[in-house]
């Protein structure tokens, strides 16, 4: 699946701390070691969990590297040391981790890419709430804005995703027994993040996302040689071929310096991923706008592998519609227009104007949910 890397990436995906991702990863490491494969632990976060720590017995650790920051020393994975050790396989905990400033790379997943580029296979762990595309949904469900995110394409590029399941009841039992956190922290966790509803919702997201990844890999693979399916009544779960070949969907996201643009970008990209559509972003430059905000959103979009364009025009709706037509766009994603003072309320908003100008396209006004 991954075209850029020589190494093979496998990710154990969980829905919360304590479901057993690290344990499963180490279990596999032990099995590989028994088969005589040269394997090291690149990074391991023990969290004081006895059963998990016991699982590391006999495995070779590459020591972490201390990085001074703000008069304190932080420990990060020593990517260079792993590279010079050159094992066949490295296991790396907490794939979504952000490195301390002063590290060579910003994110641990970038360190992992360096290992993969060198031909080292990596087995990693991650929780579903770190996926960029789910950031707003997770915030909406749990009230927590997850800061450490991983662009979806990084996970799409992984060769294997394995969902690590545990029922919320079992997870809460583990918390109660003090297996996951020290007991004072555990009670707090159960009252806040680890509620039955939060856990159930996160778990469902992880299941659906893993199913989505499996389907993505299926549609990337060549179709089966023999098609002998006479579908009887009932729903065929596989994506169905349309009766007539359809124009490929192309999505255009209209972004500005408004903070809501981040939500807009994530949502547009997520829909594009599910519809297997192309995804572009446009910004119509206006005088006096928040240049810094615009630049931040443009670079955020590019990090998610969205093609960005800037257009200079006096009239934004017309410019967006013209660009969309020229680019064969089928769906335009926008935020709601800002509330207007009463004396301007008789004139139409940008959204209305874009809809009026782009009659052959769908216009999507993205939800601006509050908690």
């Amino acid at each position: 699946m991954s075209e850029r890397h020589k190494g093979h990436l496998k990710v154990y995906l969980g829905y919360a701390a304590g479901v057993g991702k690290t344990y499963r990863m180490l279990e596999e490491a032990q099995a590989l070691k028994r088969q005589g494969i040269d394997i090291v632990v690149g990074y391991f976060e023990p969290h004081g969990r006895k059963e998990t720590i016991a699982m590391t017995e006999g495995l070779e650790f590459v020591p972490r590297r201390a990085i001074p920051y703000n008069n304190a020393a932080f420990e990060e994975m020593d990517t260079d040391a792993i590279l010079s050790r050159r094992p066949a396989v490295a296991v790396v905990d907490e794939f979504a981790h952000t490195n301390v400033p002063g590290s060579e790379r910003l994110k641990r997943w970038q360190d992992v890419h360096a290992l993969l580029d060198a031909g080292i296979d990596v087995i990693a762990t991650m929780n579903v709430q770190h996926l960029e595309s789910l950031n707003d949904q997770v915030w909406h469900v749990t009230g927590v804005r997850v800061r450490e995110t991983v662009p979806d394409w990084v996970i799409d590029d992984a060769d294997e995703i394995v969902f690590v399941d545990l029922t919320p009841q079992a997870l809460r039992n583990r918390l109660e027994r003090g297996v996951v956190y020290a007991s004072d922290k555990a009670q707090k966790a159960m009252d806040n993040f680890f509620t039955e509803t939060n856990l159930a919702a996160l778990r469902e997201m992880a299941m659906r996302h893993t199913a989505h990844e499996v389907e993505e890999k299926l549609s990337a693979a060549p179709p089966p040689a023999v098609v002998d399916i006479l579908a009887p009544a009932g729903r065929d779960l596989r994506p169905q071929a349309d009766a007539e070949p359809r124009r490929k969907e192309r999505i255009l996201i209209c972004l500005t310096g408004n903070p809501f643009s981040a939500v807009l970008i994530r949502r547009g990209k997520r829909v594009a991923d599910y519809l297997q559509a192309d995804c572009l972003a446009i910004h119509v430059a206006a005088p006096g706008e928040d240049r810094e905000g615009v630049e931040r959103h443009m670079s955020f979009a590019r990090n998610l592998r969205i093609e960005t364009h800037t257009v200079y025009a006096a009239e934004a709706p017309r410019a967006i519609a013209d660009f969309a037509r020229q680019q064969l766009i089928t769906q335009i994603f926008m935020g709601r227009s800002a509330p207007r003072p009463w004396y301007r309320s008789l004139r139409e908003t940008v959204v209305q104007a874009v809809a009026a100008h782009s009659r052959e396209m769908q216009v999507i006004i993205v939800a601006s949910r509050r908690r």
Partner: protein
Amino acid sequence: MADRTDHRPDPEELLRRVQAGERRERRGRLKVFLGYAPRVGKSFRMFDEGRRRKQRGQDVVIGSLQGSLTPDLETILANLEVIPPVREHHAGRVWDVINLAAIFRRHPSTCLIDGLAFDNPPGSRNPHRWEDVEELLDRGIAVITAVNLQHIEEKQDAVERITAKRAANSVPEEFLLEADEIEVVDAPTEALIGRALDASMPDPRQLAELREMALLLAADVVERQLQVYLDDHCIAVRWGAQERILVCLTARSNARAMLESGHRNALRFHGALMAAYVERTRLDAADRERLDANLELARQLGAEVHRLSNDDFVEAILDFAREQRVTQVFLGHTGRERRWWEPRSSVDRLIDAAEDFDLRLFPHREAR
């Protein structure tokens, strides 16, 4: 077609819930491990859980064992008590039947049952093993069991379409939905192929399709259990992990484009598709006919059709969308610019009010 008015549970519904709650308290807890294919390791996970419960001091026994034992499994089983099934010979076939009487006498706190989908021989107390499990639960014994996707009755057509094979015995999906806990045993398809020693194993593509189906089935079960929990605790939420699409139909809207797009989106997201129209008394015959045709098309595309009665179109849509936790609303628009003397259109009002869902605008077919 559902008519929507008030959605508070009626007294009978509340009574049912209380009774169900009482029954749940007396009953043993049921936990099911769900696998997408043979050898994903669901039995191992089940017995491993039994081992851990025993370590924590619970009284655990094994009520049935399937197939050959791997060395890993033997280590786990070494410390667990087995109540051996009764071997019966019937019409030239050998059947292993759970020894219910012995388990009742022994009355453990937890009983492990492998091979949930097995049938019992003719003349048995229960035709199916899952019914034996129900009896254990009724006696207050907790059960941990394991089942594969191809044995879930409601999924067997779909599985057969993928593998061209159909398992002879099955368990109703309701059994899964009623379980207190369901856990997915996931594994990369590649890992199974290495172990495939016989021709009965599906090919990699088939395995991937089964895997996706099992994950989505589990997600649906989780969603439903979450809904029950929320209802029981009277918690109203406006979110869900599943995409829920609502197509608003009118006589004038470009229904085909909206419904086809909605259908495609629902398929891609494995979401729900709904269509709604707001009842109007003043519809001429031609418009009525157009609307009926649109509703028929909606049904054909698998949409759940709802009639909303509210004088205010925007309010009707907003209320319904909130109640159904809709994530996307599809709506037609004329695309014509509003003249300054005209009142604000429904589309404009919905745009302003739509906070919780995406609003997807489709131009009407008619030119301006």
